[in-house]
């Protein structure tokens, strides 16, 4: 009975007719405000999407996506930016994934000192709360300057490792917590060692959470701009992985998609191209959100 009353508009309209004028005004006014606010949020997204696609699609050619810019040929292109984005994502994940998953395993499986767990969790929260411009500042100081890496892909990736670590730790920890205690007891009871138990029982059953963490981290890296602008730089030239090898690649500077957008909009005032990059970024964001949702749904199915 109460279940149908809560959250069912027709009932309250009928009820409202028997109210005093003041209460009826409150009812109608508040309801209007709620609908206005929700409508505004939806309208905002519709406006953003349609405006960006309207402005960006006309200049979004296959050539723009698949070539490097060249003044000689008069070609504009963001292929280097797309490549750099992928390189930065891969380099960051390669480092942060073992670190983050390891930290989460320590926190949920090994740690016995309550104070230490609290300290690590507090540190993780602190890292998550630090704004990206401070990461840019510290990253450019530690990696570019003190360690002498200069503005390179590797310096940027290392800074992003620190920035995305909380995301990986938190999501992995959440999914490790959902692994039933009986799995662990069963495995240990059959004579498995602790590490063997974690490797063969706990980790496989929480792989969805780790994947979700990766997707969220990728989303954060794709959307990040301040860190990349000041630790990787804004060169728009092509990287040659197959010609130069991995180490020279990581030591070169380059712009990612967000930095390319910023350069087009702010330094060159080439807004048409900036909107085209924005379309690419929005499509990536859509895909990432969708992927996170699908994996999350799989996760919930497993729990049942």
């Amino acid at each position, binding site marked *: 009975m*109460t279940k149908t*009353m*809560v*959250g069912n508009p027709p009932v*309250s309209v009928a*009820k409202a007719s028997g*109210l005093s004028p003041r*209460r009826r005004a*409150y*009812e109608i006014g*508040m309801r209007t405000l*709620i609908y206005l*606010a*929700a409508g*505004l*949020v*939806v309208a*905002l*997204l519709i406006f*953003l999407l349609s*405006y*960006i696609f309207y402005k960006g699609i006309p200049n979004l050619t296959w050539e723009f996506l698949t070539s490097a810019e060249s003044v000689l040929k008069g070609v504009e292109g963001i292929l280097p930016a797309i490549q750099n984005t992928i390189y930065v994502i891969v380099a960051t994940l390669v480092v942060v994934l073992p*670190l983050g998953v*390891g*930290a989460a395993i*320590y926190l949920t499986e*090994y740690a016995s000192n309550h104070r*230490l767990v609290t300290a*690590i969790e*507090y*540190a993780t929260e*602190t890292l998550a*709360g*630090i*704004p*990206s*411009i*401070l990461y840019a*500042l*510290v990253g450019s*100081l*530690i990696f570019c300057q003190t360690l002498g890496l200069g503005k390179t892909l590797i310096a940027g990736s290392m800074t992003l490792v620190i920035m995305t*670590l*909380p995301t990986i730790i938190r999501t992995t920890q959440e999914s490790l917590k959902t692994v039933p205690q009986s799995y662990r007891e069963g495995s240990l009871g059959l004579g498995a060692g*602790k*590490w063997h138990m974690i490797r063969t029982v706990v980790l496989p059953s929480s792989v969805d959470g780790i994947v979700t963490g990766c997707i969220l981290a990728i*989303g954060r890296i794709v*959307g990040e*701009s*301040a860190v990349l*602008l*000041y630790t990787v730089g804004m060169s728009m030239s092509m990287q040659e992985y197959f010609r130069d090898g991995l180490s020279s690649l990581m030591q070169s500077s380059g712009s990612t998609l967000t930095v390319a*957008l*910023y350069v087009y*909009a702010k330094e060159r005032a080439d*807004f048409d191209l900036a909107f085209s990059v*924005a379309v690419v*970024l*929005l499509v990536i*964001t859509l895909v990432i959100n969708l992927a996170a949702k699908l994996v999350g749904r799989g996760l919930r199915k497993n729990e049942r």
Partner: protein
Amino acid sequence: MQGLFFVCGFIAIVFVLLITIYLIVSGLPAIREIGLVEFLFGTRWESTNKTDPAFGILPMILTSIYGTAGAILIGVPIGFLTAVYLAKVASPKVAGVIRPVVDLLAGIPSVVYGLVGMMVLVPWIRETFHTPAGESLLAAIVVLAIMILPSIISVSETALKAVPREYEEASLALGATELETYFRVSAPAAKSGIAAAVVLGVGRAIGEAMAILMVAGNVANMPTLLSSVKFLTTGIASELSYSSGLQRQALFSIGLVLFLFIMCINVLLNVFLKRDKED
């Protein structure tokens, strides 16, 4: 194996210490050279002036505070009302459509918000208020308000949903209407969660750099609604790439000030979250 995992876990603490120490060590020399009072309360920031440089960041501090307050003033009511709609009023089907919309807003890169702000908001302000440049505190406030909406909505929605059903049922049984129940029973019961949402929004707004770098104009004026302004974050961002010497050190001092702001906000956030858990 345990040792290895311990190192992984401990590294988060190491990173925090590293960042804190680096910011303090590199931020203090400039403050010492300029003078703490002169640095914090000086109203003139002319870091590139060769003959008479001045490093007062009061305009930036005030801009960051005003900008954040403005964004909260606009963003919190809209976000809170949307959260009430999602948590209580909307049918599951409608909420299932709107929630992804909010997630998507959260995922859009900040430079994209900056770009749209630059192309839509800035010209609009220039024409409506007849100012020479539309790049202003007002533009930054609107962009920030939009950017903090998703976190305010999702955190307050979670808080509202956690209110025990019995509270609402009792209120309804006593004759209150649904909306009276939501605003006078559910919202007060979820108040620490909603406070956490507001504090989270403050943290987001005060730390945002790139989007407002594109719409705020980057002149260190004392803030008024329609003047070009420089935030703490954009003060760092606009000069980091070419600065050197004392100017560069001063940027790290700004970073230190910003870091202190963020740490205070973190402490506040933890207080509210803990209270929420205890409830």
